[in-house]
């Protein structure tokens, strides 16, 4: 499968959703969308599934400190700093699972 990446982590709502919609509208067969997001877009999930897409969310944990946080006192504590959201067609589930193994997605 081929990857299409969009970074919406510095966009204010509703721009991330606009970017995701535009990318999905153009997504070709055997391609998947990787969205770099600052938060988990929970309300999107059930709608994606209803529209024939599947998703997998991979939190990126920063063990040192939160680069987005104002304070330095959180150093040493792990905090999720980014989410990588993989969106693919439900009909391509088997291909994505193979890819997920390769990418070691948890």
């Amino acid at each position, binding site marked *: 499968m081929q990857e299409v990446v969009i970074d919406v982590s*510095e*966009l*204010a*709502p*509703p721009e991330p*959703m*606009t970017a995701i*919609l*535009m990318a*999905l*509208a153009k997504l070709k067969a055997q391609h998947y969308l990787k969205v770099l997001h*600052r*938060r*988990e877009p*929970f*309300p*999107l*999930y*059930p*709608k*994606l599934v*209803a*529209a024939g*897409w*599947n*998703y*997998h*969310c991979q*939190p990126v944990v920063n063990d040192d400190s*939160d680069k*987005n*946080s*104002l*304070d330095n*006192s*959180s150093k040493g*504590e792990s*905090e*999720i700093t980014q989410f990588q959201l993989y969106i693919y067609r439900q009909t391509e589930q088997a291909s*994505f*699972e193979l890819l*997920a193994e390769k990418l070691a*997605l*948890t």
Partner: protein
Amino acid sequence: MNLSGLSFNALPPVHLPFRFFLSAPIFAFFCVTILLTYGESLWLSRWHPAMLALTHGFTLGIITMVMMGALLQILPVVAGISFPKVERIATISHVFMVIGSASLLLSFLFPHSLIILFSIISLTLAFGVFIGGLFWALAPTLKQTFNQGDTLVVIRLATIALLVVILLGLLLQLNRFGLYAGFSSLTAWLPFDKFYTNIHALLGGFGWMGLLIIAVSFQVIPMFHVAPSFPQPVRKYFAKLIAISLIALLCSSFFEFELKWFIAVLLVLQSFYVLVVINVLRKRKRKVPDITVRYWFLASVSMLFLTLLYFIDEFFSLKALQGKQDLFFSGAFIYFYLLSILQGLLIKILPFLSYTHLQQRCLMNFEAMQYLPHMHQFISKQQANVLWFLHLLAACSLLIVILQPGLYLAFSALLTIEFAYLFWIMVQTVSIYKKTSEKITQLDS
């Protein structure tokens, strides 16, 4: 794929929160009617029945009404959790909230036992159903780890505060109904006097409303303004400090502490919070002019001034405020702090919710994207600016009328204009949403 066994809830239909939002201006008009009916005499004392009605018109009919509607949407956004049977819970709690708040206001003005009883039953149903649903929705957050755990903890604390506020309010209202007459042992244990009314008010302002604003700000400020996260110690411990102060306040009847010391501590804590808000907002990445940011700054700076003035008055007894401190400080807290933040958030979430619901429909048919209006078509920048200006004028006129009650007509007029304009903006948003939604439906069929 492993999704950690979690099932995520979609946003509830947009008409559910909008019902709550659209009801708020109606209570503002109810408040204007009270202002015009009672005139100057209303401002003589905070214990004047019409003043109690006015205060509840703002705190229950406007602020709590909007907060309940907003909570329906916040939980799915923050953690992917939702009220169970959200349509039914929202409908029941909204209907009884409107009836209960209106009858409570009337019960202050016309203390007939039937009106009092009606308000008790309606509000018990409204809050019973809503708080029950909220606790049900929050229950999984006790067992599972959520990424937004700090916010959920503060929402839990705010809900507990709301429960205590409502229980105290109902006990006070039952006393007015005369339930305790003849039970001297009970009334001796529970002195239903001004002391408990003060606790009810402080828990409502700093607990329910104050804590919920803090919880929501942890999410919406970084999200909407691409600002840094709040510092972790603030997210983790700050709301707990306020909660501890409020628990101490609740227990203060057993100690010799005066209420004013609790108020001082709570004001200092709130001031610290708004300083953090200012700092976070100053470091936002999107430094575009944004009216919601201006509302946050107005509320934050007002809170700092309010605290400063409170201490100046404590030490130097300001002549202008003599005998009017309670009204002045609570009026400033409600209008300059709570209402400013609430209105700022409304201006942001009304178009955002409408747009998001429409966008999600486009997932089923990408062609529908052509019908999506621009975000600023829902509420234009100019309209938002006008509303901010009207809000500032109304807020200033409230403080002036507290000091000079003869000017009550000015406050009544400005309050009417502000909320009529807000109501118009809301109706416009709903109308654009409906028209676009119909176009998408036609395309689908």
